[in-house]
């Protein structure tokens, strides 16, 4: 079976608070899923359900074909790795001792432990107390911990919060290595810029409901947001302008030499042909709608609908 995570019609209530409402979501082997949403949107609740730390009020959760709270929980737990949000670990222990503790619980060897310290770049600091670690080093220790026992599934909750840009880059290059090895990854985040090229699929949560789920291309098609084309050259009024106006395509001139055009997806190629047929054009830049604008779009669609209801 190819489906690593199968969540069907799941609701989770804490007393009278509805943390998740009717969540249905599938993640296949080797996919990297970005789980996006504001704070309190239900991301961590979803991760806890997958890990079997809590049980759904309604619905079904299956991981690698088994219920994470059922009889196979132990076997499942050997096969995943989890990095919780802002975990501070045991301050009085050294990095090696912390990792040693978790390695023993997961029955990983000392050799694997040292290999992981090396891999996340903590070999030199391994015998220093965690208390002295920077936020980035703690996060790397957390990642090493999650990678114990070569997990098939990784759940990373806000892994890049509070990291400096270089640490973020290191993190994503490590993530890309794992992705190449076929590890399934769930990455929860509210930091949008920069994660687009590292994920295959996006799930957007808002107030416990799934707003959208799919690949970036699917979401772009669903949203129908315009593409932005920037063309530089000289743009005397003429044929191109009439054609754009006839098709109702918005265009703005910026400081005389730059032209910005918002075009629907299906007209993209026509617009580009039109622009390229102008002799004076010397550069074209095409931007697909960013993840950020998709996020804003899907969140505001919901707001309008609930406004009407």
């Amino acid at each position, binding site marked *: 079976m190819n489906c690593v995570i199968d969540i069907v019609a799941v609701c989770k209530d804490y007393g009278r608070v509805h943390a998740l409402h009717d969540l249905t979501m599938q993640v296949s082997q080797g996919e990297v899923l970005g789980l996006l949403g504001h704070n309190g949107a239900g991301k961590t609740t979803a991760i806890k359900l997958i890990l079997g730390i809590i049980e759904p009020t309604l619905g079904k959760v299956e991981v690698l074909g088994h219920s994470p709270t059922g009889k196979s929980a132990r076997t499942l*737990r050997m096969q995943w790795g*989890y990095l919780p949000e802002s*975990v501070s*670990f*045991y301050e009085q222990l050294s990095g090696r001792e912390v990792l040693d503790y978790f390695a023993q*619980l997961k029955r990983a060897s000392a050799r694997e432990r040292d290999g992981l310290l090396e891999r996340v770049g903590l070999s030199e600091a391994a015998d220093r107390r965690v208390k002295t670690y920077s936020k980035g080093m703690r996060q790397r220790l957390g990642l090493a911990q999650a990678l114990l026992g070569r997990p098939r599934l990784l759940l990373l909750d806000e892994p890049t919060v509070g990291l400096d840009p270089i640490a973020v880059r290191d993190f994503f290059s490590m993530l890309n290595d794992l992705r190449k090895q076929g590890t399934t990854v769930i990455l929860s985040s509210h930091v949008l810029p920069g994660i687009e090229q590292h994920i295959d699929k996006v799930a957007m949560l808002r107030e416990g409901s799934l707003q959208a789920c799919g690949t970036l291309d699917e979401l772009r098609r669903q949203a129908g947001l315009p593409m932005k084309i920037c063309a530089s050259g000289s743009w005397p009024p003429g044929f191109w302008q009439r054609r754009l106006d006839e098709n109702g395509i918005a265009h703005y001139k910026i400081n005389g030499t730059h032209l910005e055009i918002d075009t629907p997806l299906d007209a993209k190629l026509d617009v580009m042909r039109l622009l390229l047929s102008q002799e004076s054009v010397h550069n074209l830049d095409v931007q697909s709608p960013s993840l950020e604008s998709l996020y804003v779009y899907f969140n505001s669609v919901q707001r309008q609908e609930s406004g009407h209801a």
Partner: protein
Amino acid sequence: MHEVLTVARKEFSDGLRNRWVLAISLMFALFALGLAYFGAAVSGQVGFTSLDTTIVSLASLAIFVIPLIALLLSYDGVVGEEEQGTLLLLLSYPLSRVQLLAGKFLGHAMVLAVSSILGFGLAALAIAFLTGNIASAGLWKAFGSFILSAVMLGWVFVALAYLLSVSVNEKSRAAGMALIVWFVFVLVFDLALLGMLVATQGGLHAELFPYLLLLNPTDVFRLANLTGMAATQAYSGLISVSSAQLFPPTLLFGVLLLWVIIPLGLASFIFKHKES
């Protein structure tokens, strides 16, 4: 079992690392030696006095100190990890909540056992050596049974501390409740019982009274150590009311064991059903 032992080993080595074991052992040893030497100061003399007096005064002090130490050691055992974020992580690992709790209890139980045996044991050794009683079976038996009951008393309060620790969501609240538990079992319970006894003029509860004492683990500890001692009459207000011969020592140790098992069982039940 591997999981339980792994957690227990970590808790115990934490106890060594942050000097809990050292501090408790030293404190116990100093108390024991001090009481043995100055125990008879009230009667106008210093020097090592009778074994009975030493044990009785040690037990009276232990009743205040041991519950406090045990509660301090363990009140944040679960809630502390929760605040740190490591509890969530541990729950995603291949170990059950009961295993986690059992490991933590075992680790702290060992911290208390090792420091009691070290502290009181060394003191007993010193007393035996200084008084030339090194071969006295009575001394070793008396100290042996005192240490055993002291360890059990510690375990009772470690178990109660875990019950608190799984029942609350903030460390500060657990600390406050730990103080209340100490206050109730060490001070309030006896006062209330005494009050009841006086109010009913001793008549109503003559039969029931000794059994009511079993509801407080510190009183069980007191009974285990003070009954049958010559020095008891002078020191142990409430206990002397009850018949000394009523409960054999094995029964008292059994009751202490129940006082460990029941709170721990409750704690694991609550922890298992807690949404975290």
